[in-house]
């Protein structure tokens, strides 16, 4: 995009989203019933897509260590359980995570750009990213400037993502749209396109820090956007849903959405992620239940 007016014209040319229809479609797909081997496959897939997350002021190096171990070996008694996709943490803890994870396939993802509000000067945001990358982050989860987006300064949003992407270097960039603050599905679709056009490797629903986190219809609209972007450009952008996804049932509903909206190419941790903390244990419990045929105790798995 050469100019903000061009970008604005492009966004205006995107089809609108009928909220009722989008919500009805998401609700209908939520009635899919996954049984037996499908359920086992889906549970393992979901486990492998988890960005095991801790984003608290009270986070400690010890907690991050524990999280990294959990990500690598979600169920230490069962080697057939896949590892999680990544740990997702604040920048100052990236170095610790990098050390613990070593050569493991589990990625280090760091939130950056004045997460979660995005309220800082651009150079501060870029420095935030640069430090996280230098400390070993494989992935950067940035937040867009919602204030700029909602007030129509879409060029600013675009340029900021471009600038962050540049600083990321070879690290993957996930762009958090914070759909709960975007008010309409039309905005979710537009923000998705801005992020993709600016070079996002993933678009992500939420920080998990506002009242409304990821919802099925918002994720549906984003999946439709990545599908249409892929058809237009040939580039496959990933989607990460985050916030409020606590149990296996919810996670499987998202996988159904992926399965029936964008298909096989996205049914991999390379293109779909869950940002969550307690979700992982529920996935493990359901997995064990499927295998044992009986419900299991929560204490079967570690708390972190």
């Amino acid at each position, binding site marked *: 995009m050469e100019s903000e007016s061009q970008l604005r014209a492009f966004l205006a040319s995107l089809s609108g989203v*009928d*909220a*009722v229809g989008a*919500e009805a479609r998401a609700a209908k797909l939520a009635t899919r019933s996954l049984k037996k081997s499908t359920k086992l496959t889906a549970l393992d897939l979901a486990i492998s897509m988890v960005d095991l997350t801790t984003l608290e002021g009270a986070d400690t190096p010890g907690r991050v260590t524990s999280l990294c171990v959990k990500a690598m070996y979600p169920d230490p008694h069962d080697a057939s359980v896949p590892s999680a996709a990544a740990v997702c943490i604040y920048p100052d803890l990236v170095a610790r995570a990098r050390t613990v994870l070593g050569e493991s396939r589990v990625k280090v993802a760091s939130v950056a750009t004045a997460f979660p509000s995005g309220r800082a000067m651009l150079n501060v945001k870029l420095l935030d990213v640069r430090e996280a990358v230098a400390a070993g982050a494989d992935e950067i989860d940035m937040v867009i400037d919602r204030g700029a987006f909602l007030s129509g300064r879409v060029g600013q949003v675009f340029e900021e993502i471009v600038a962050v992407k540049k600083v990321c270097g070879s690290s993957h960039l996930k762009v958090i749209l914070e759909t709960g603050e975007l*008010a*309409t*599905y039309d905005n979710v679709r537009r923000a998705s396109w801005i992020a993709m056009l600016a070079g996002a490797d993933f678009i992500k629903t939420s920080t998990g820090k506002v009242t409304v986190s990821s919802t099925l219809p918002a994720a549906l609209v984003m999946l439709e956007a990545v599908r249409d972007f892929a058809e237009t450009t040939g580039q496959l952008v990933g989607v990460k849903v985050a916030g409020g996804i606590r149990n296996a049932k919810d996670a499987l509903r998202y996988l159904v959405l992926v399965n029936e909206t964008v298909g096989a190419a996205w049914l991999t941790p390379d293109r779909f992620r869950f940002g969550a903390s307690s979700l992982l244990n529920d996935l493990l419990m359901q997995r064990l239940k499927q295998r044992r045929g009986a419900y299991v105790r929560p204490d079967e798995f570690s708390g972190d």
Partner: protein
Amino acid sequence: MSERLDVRKTYKLLINGAFPRSESGRSYEVTSLKGAFLANVAQGSRKDVRDAVVAARGAQLKWWSQSAYNRGQVIYRLAEMAESRREELAEHVALAEGRSAKGAQTRVSRAIDRIVWYAGWTDKIAQVLGSSNPVAGPFFNFSIPVPSGVVGVLAEQDSSLEAFVNAVFAPLAVGNTVVVIASERRPTPSILLGEMTATADFPPGALNIITGYTGELAPTLAAHEDVDGLDLGGADDEFADQLATSAAGSIKRVLRAKKSDATSLRRLRAFVETSTVWHTIGQ
């Protein structure tokens, strides 16, 4: 000094806003109830019925899509015209129905008042018959009465003006266009009323009046597939049964009115369809 010889009128059809003689060139003799010669009235043919239906279909969207307020104005305008020619109407009702001057005047007054009544209905019927429907979901849903389309009317045979007004202006008020076969033996008051429509801004074709033999014309109207509704007021029971059976061929709405319907909503409901629109409600 001899009396002035009066200038007589030729009684013609009303089709598409024009007053043609029947395409057949035929006419028939209409007398007063007492048997005195009144007029040679155009004897409409099946082709005249066909032409009238084409005219009515052509006018329907125009009549319907002008505002309900305008339709009310036009119908009220006809009442004004009728009022100014009430003496003439009364004279014809008296001759046609064999009534005293006073009796005829009463009937003309009632007929004109009834036209005014229907003029007032045009912009109220949607509020009375329509609704907003509270469906269980994020939809705005409303129902409105829309006209059936083209309505064929067999005017009652005995009442030369009042019943005609009821049968014709109810469907017109709700937006239909009408092809009416006038009372066979008592057509002149309705022909006069038809003439008045020419000065009342009805779109050509909104009201079409065919005079002639009901027994010959009605089957064509009943079977015509582009007629959406049929009022059988002018047919006796046996004939009405036969026409209703024929009307079923194109799933027509058929009205077999009762006397009590003159002042009820039934006539207004007879030739409206309920159209329901759903629209999503969302941000």
